[in-house]
């Protein structure tokens, strides 16, 4: 009897706890959802994130010591309340402190809202798999009348086509899809020939494009995805893929945002070939994410890097951190961009120099510990090199080789994500918009405090 009563009270207490917890969780989920529509809260969350989180998870949330926070992988739960609790309690064994005592509840919710505002990847991935006997006409309309041979929910937010386990199958996947908010993207597949597809975004069919490769334009931000694939009747063409590469990319295939299928994940994971300027200054001419074509990158052992562009004769990017992961640009056909390993201080269209390509005539560069670029801007012959590189600053020196009769030079300065700019000639601050070439034979531009 006593044990019965204990059991009863235990059950009631347990039920009360569950109810309370789920009530509190819903509340946080809802509150974060509300904050996601408040730009001020997102901005505040961004600020707190920058102070408390970015050192480990990277400013762009792409991960460093800490996990990537904008992809599909959420090891400790992907609801707002999960993330809120993780921020509050931390993972002491993994080296992440709890911020429950340091930040108030509102600050923690704002951080969650900021993280969720940057979210990319899939969530709530569910699949239904059909066998050929269920679609005798090889038509997607056959599936409307069929019961799936297999169905379930993906536990890693990726589509695993190998779950079909049979050579010939049709699959219908539904998922929440978080596309980048600030860039155009597409769902991209490499299925080989003869498979059929239907893709719906927010319930609306999307026209398939492409030839060898297939792609479907996506909306920005959150959307509901339905992806249907039906393999052709066996025996297949040798190039038909039963386990296709499916991912979200920029329309020009330059940037892989995230994998959608497990096959794509394994391919993207192999796209790593880091060039680290740990011993000497390195110069690399590659396709670089978010920089224009014709950019030449220079990396310093001090973990600071810049890119010079030969079409506008200007600096088009500067980043802190390691030099480059050139893997996406040198593996396979090398369709995608090399990735700077770090955080931007500035990037194109911000420039040190000009965006007017008509003013630029590039000549050459010299390698060494102080790579030097030779070019003309508005007919003024110049060279550009670095006098000093530290972990927080770069000092560039322009030398006027021949003004070719020009009396002044206009150098546009970039807006920086962090730090400041100083322009000096003969030890004096000068106006970069009107550099007096009758007086100035050399001047420096220092980017510091980055």
């Amino acid at each position, binding site marked *: 009897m006593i044990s019965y009563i204990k059991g009863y009270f235990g059950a009631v207490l347990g039920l009360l706890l569950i109810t309370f917890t789920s009530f509190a969780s819903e509340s946080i989920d809802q509150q974060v959802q509300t904050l996601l529509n408040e730009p001020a809260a997102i901005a505040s969350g961004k600020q707190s994130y920058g102070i408390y989180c970015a050192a480990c998870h990277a400013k762009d949330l792409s991960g460093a010591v800490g996990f990537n926070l904008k992809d599909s992988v959420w090891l400790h739960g992907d609801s707002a309340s999960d993330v809120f609790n993780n921020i509050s309690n931390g993972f002491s064994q993994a080296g992440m402190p709890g911020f429950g005592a340091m930040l108030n509840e509102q600050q923690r919710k704002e951080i969650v809202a900021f993280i969720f505002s940057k979210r990319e990847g899939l969530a709530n991935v569910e699949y239904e798999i059909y066998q050929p006997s269920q679609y005798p006409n090889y038509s997607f309309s056959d599936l409307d009348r069929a019961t799936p041979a297999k169905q379930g929910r993906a536990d890693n937010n990726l589509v695993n086509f190998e779950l079909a386990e049979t050579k010939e199958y049709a699959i219908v996947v539904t998922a929440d899809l978080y596309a980048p908010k600030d860039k155009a993207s597409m769902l991209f597949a490499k299925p080989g020939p003869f498979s059929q597809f239907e893709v719906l975004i927010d319930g609306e069919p999307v026209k398939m494009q492409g*030839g060898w490769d297939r792609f479907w334009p996506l909306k920005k931000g959150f959307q509901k995805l339905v992806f249907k694939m039906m393999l052709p009747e066996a025996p297949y063409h040798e190039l038909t893929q039963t386990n296709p590469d499916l991912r979200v990319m920029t329309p020009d295939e330059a940037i892989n945002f995230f994998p959608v299928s497990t096959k794509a994940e394994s391919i993207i994971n192999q796209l790593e070939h880091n060039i680290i300027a740990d011993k000497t200054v390195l110069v690399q001419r590659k396709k670089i994410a978010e920089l224009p074509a014709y950019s030449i990158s220079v990396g310093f052992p001090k973990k600071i890097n810049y890119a010079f562009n*030969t079409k506008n004769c200007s600096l088009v990017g500067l980043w802190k951190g390691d030099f480059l992961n050139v893997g996406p640009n*040198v593996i396979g*056909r090398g*369709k995608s961009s090399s990735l700077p390993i770090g955080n931007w201080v500035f990037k194109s269209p911000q420039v040190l120099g000009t965006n007017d390509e008509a003013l630029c005539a590039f000549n050459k560069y*010299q390698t*060494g510990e102080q790579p030097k670029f030779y070019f003309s801007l508005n007919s003024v012959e110049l060279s550009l090199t670095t006098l000093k590189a530290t972990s927080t600053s770069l000092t560039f020196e322009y030398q006027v080789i021949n003004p070719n009769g020009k009396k002044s030079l206009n150098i546009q300065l970039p807006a920086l994500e962090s730090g400041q700019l100083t322009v000096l000639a003969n030890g004096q601050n000068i106006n970069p918009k009107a550099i007096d070439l009758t007086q100035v034979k050399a001047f420096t531009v220092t980017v510091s405090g980055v």
Partner: protein
Amino acid sequence: MKLQIKKSLLAASLMAAILPVQAEQVIPTGYKVETIKTPQGMEFHVTGLDVDSKNNIYAATRFGDVWRYTPEGQWQKFAEGLHEPTGLLVEDDNHIVVAQKPELTRLSDTDKDGVADEYIRVADGWKFHDNYHEYHFGPVKDKAGNYYGTLNLSHGDPNAFDMGTMGSSGGYRGWAYQVNQQGEFTPYAFGLRSPAGIGISPDDEIFFTDNQGDWVATSTLQLLKKDKFYGHPVSLIDHPDYTPEKIRNTSVEAYDKWREKPVVHIPHVEIANSPGNPEWNTTKGQFGPFEGQIFVGDQTQSNVFRIMLEEIDGVRQGAVINFIDGFQSGNIRVTFDQKGQLWIGQTARGWGAKGSKPYGLQKVVWDGTTPFELQNIQAKADGFRVSFTQPIDAKSIKKKAISAEQWHYNYGSDYGSPKVDLTQIDINSVKQVDDKTIDIKLDATQGYVVMLDFAGLTNKKGSSASSTKVYYTLNKKPN
């Protein structure tokens, strides 16, 4: 039981369709292929290859490095950080010119320490849009000091003008260019698709190969001439007389009439899918009995083939025959060194190759033994004159020793063309001209590719040639 047999037959035939049949390697007697050990840990996809006066081999890699291989067998890095170079020319022992995607660049070793320290822009008068397929091939340099290069069309560029497959976002994609000694860039010719190899003849004529695909029925060897159109309309986006609408509205027939016809058709799969640079054998006999002929590698088929040219009434044409196959990777660059050895730069990245290795460097060496092979083929009014490198066994010279067929190709936007009007040709007669030469009389059709298979012809020892099928592009039948 019957059903099982049928099933296994079906399975066997399917396997045969998918798996390549293991055939004996084609390699003439007296030649061997040697593999060069490439620098450890380096992704050594060799897409630029040349030699200096001291017989140092210079290799440009797709990763962006230039390496020097000394006659003593040492590798030394000469330059790095280039953007996927796919061509290299040794100008002199201190200057190398590379074709990297955005620029034609001279690498200069100013302090003579053996490493390039200046990367000088020679030309960048075209546009590069960071599309992976915008390769830049070359350069070759003519006797007047002009450089020539070719510019690939793009693929999968969402901003490009295209007609289904390959595209151009403008800036002379699908053009060949010339740069003179003053550095002036001149768009030179247009209508190119994927012109992966450019070469220069001892007579100072520029030739290029183009890869099979849309508007290219089968891979080709073409003679580069100023202001000529080579068949791919997408490049016309940069032609002053054309708009996208006009390009789309111009008939295939009009393009066909306008285009330069290939000097040599290179039959798809049988000879090549993705040929590289044409290299003339001017080794003065160091490479055996094929002096003056053109050697080309193929990236897909992992082989090297020979081309023989002639001119009939001002019309250029010629024949192609396999030389050696079974190389370790995809052959994209070939060059003769100072000893008359043929070096082969290789890559299979992004596009498959028959050879299983992803990259590498090999060379073909001749040991002085003259093999029994086809030496040359010339068109005649009533057939062909074919000569061999050794005396032919007179007993083997008979009609049934030789078979022939002919076909032509469709021109248009389809991706490649099947053989059209493929027909067997009767051998009317075979007549010995001298101990190494025969005349084959047959009725071939002008404008067709004629394939002669002389599998039944042998030398005095009863051996047939290692490669017995020669493909002649009969642009002009002699009168």
